[in-house]
């Protein structure tokens, strides 16, 4: 009987597979990305390296010395104070304390302040509180401190916002009305996001993280790219991270454009050029984990997408890694064996500049 190696399914379940079966899954995952994105698959050597990483005997693995990359944290201090649904550990701590723990105990290279709702829209009524907290963080911390939240255009549609829900309109075959609603929500979102970041820049914020761009489809990306462009014009030295929600920009509108490019249907290597053009300093490409496939399949697919984004990118790529992204299983507390293997593969095979 062939030796079997421990790995996981995309939902985190432990499984054991032979080297041959793991390699077959890596090849299939790479092929899926190459087919969908019309990008090169990984080479045989790269797939062999991935196989070595996955079958490495240690519980955790690490990058080779000299290949360490910056690590940036999202969601602010909620990881300390939040409950398990937020991947938090439920330790009561202020946001300042949480951020400083990340800086001084966890070795974070940059950090962000985030509100518990973690979307831009709900920050508007509490902007003074966010400004005060940001100012205190800036006075106490050394590493770059950004403000982060999700563009989350979903909050602009009924029942949460003023614009009619495009999903409802679409089901009623009101296609142009749905598209108009998405565009209007996007324009409203641009005003909100720019306004919020203007206020935070005034108290010494180092920059902004647009987290999960495209979560509500192409309208979400339209709003984010235009916000980035406006902020870059007003704050030439501001640090801007454009982090995506998934590998594909879904076309809820279908025809929205940025700089003459239709946003719907863009894959990571096509998204990054637009983010750079809008004025982002860093791009955060994402590949979602398929819970029904093995971590070998997911990692092969994810690294293939990320490698093509890195190669196409004029700016550094800090890949999004965590619960349900980057080849890591979909679990509230992602298993360390999968996290370290996926991270090592991203750095050493995809060549990402940071995580």
């Amino acid at each position, binding site marked *: 009987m062939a030796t079997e190696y421990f790995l996981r*399914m*995309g*939902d985190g*379940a432990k499984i054991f597979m032979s080297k041959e079966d793991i390699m077959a899954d890596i090849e299939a995952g790479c092929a899926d990305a190459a087919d*969908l994105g019309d990008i090169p698959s990984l080479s045989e050597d790269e797939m062999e390296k991935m196989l070595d990483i996955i079958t490495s005997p240690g519980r955790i693995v690490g990058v080779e010395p000299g290949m360490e990359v910056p690590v940036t944290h999202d969601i602010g201090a909620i990881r300390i104070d939040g409950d*398990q*649904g937020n991947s938090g550990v439920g330790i009561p701590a202020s946001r300042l304390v949480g951020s400083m723990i990340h800086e001084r105990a966890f070795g974070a290279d940059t950090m962000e302040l985030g509100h518990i709702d973690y979307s831009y829209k709900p920050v508007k009524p509490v902007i003074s509180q966010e400004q005060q907290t940001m100012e205190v963080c800036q006075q106490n911390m050394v590493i770059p401190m950004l403000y982060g939240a999700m563009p989350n255009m*979903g909050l602009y549609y009924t029942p949460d916002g003023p614009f009619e*829900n495009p*999903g*409802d309109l*679409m*089901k009623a*075959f009101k*296609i142009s009305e*749905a*598209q108009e609603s998405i565009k209007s929500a996007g324009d409203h979102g641009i005003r909100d996001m720019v306004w919020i970041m203007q206020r935070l820049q005034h108290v010494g914020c180092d920059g902004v993280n647009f987290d999960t761009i495209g*979560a*509500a*489809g*192409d309208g979400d990306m339209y709003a984010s790219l235009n916000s980035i462009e406006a902020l870059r014009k007003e704050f030439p030295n501001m640090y801007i991270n454009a982090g995506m929600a998934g590998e*594909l920009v*879904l*076309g*809820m*509108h*279908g*025809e929205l454009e940025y700089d003459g490019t239709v946003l*719907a*249907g863009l*894959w990571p290597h096509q998204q990054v050029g637009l983010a750079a053009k809008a004025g982002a300093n860093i791009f955060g490409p994402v590949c*979602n984990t*398929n*819970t*029904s496939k093995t971590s070998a399949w997911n990692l092969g697919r994810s690294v293939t997408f990320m490698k093509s984004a890195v190669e196409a990118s004029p700016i550094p790529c800090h890949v999004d890694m965590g619960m*349900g992204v980057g080849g890591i299983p*979909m*679990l*509230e507390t992602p298993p360390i064996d999968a996290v370290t293997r996926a991270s090592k593969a991203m750095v050493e095979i995809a060549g990402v500049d940071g995580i």
Partner: protein
Amino acid sequence: MNQVGVLFERGKLFLPHVMMAADAMSAGVELLQDELASGEGSAKLGVIVNGTVEGDVHDIGKAIVSTMLQAAGFEVHDIGRDVPLQNFIDKIKETNADMVGLSALMTTTLQGQKEVIELLKENGMRDDVKVMVGGAPATDAWAKKIGADCYAENASEAVVKAKELLL
């Protein structure tokens, strides 16, 4: 529409395009109504109640599934997101639905899918209603564990699975 479904799945066409195609197909079928055998082409494939379970406010994925099912010819009653579990039962009774679709995007709300199945059993409805589950943390193994009839990974697969179960 089959070809549109393939292109949708590959990220080449999107919801508005699917709806435009479905609209055009309906108009075409209407024009050809007299040429077709009585009723053929216009009959609904089945009645489906679809929603995101209580505690979970995610709407978009479920809305895409509803739209794709509708475009494929099913009568779909989308009852929204964060839906109290009893509402699924009430709507199924009201519409005499053949299937219920249960969406959950969070591991913490997945349990709601199981609880709806339990409610169907308690109400003596389980044998008459097929159950489809979906959402990022759901899997085929989860569907089997809770006694659902199927798991669909995405909107295109939801259409295929619904047809398999109801036709």
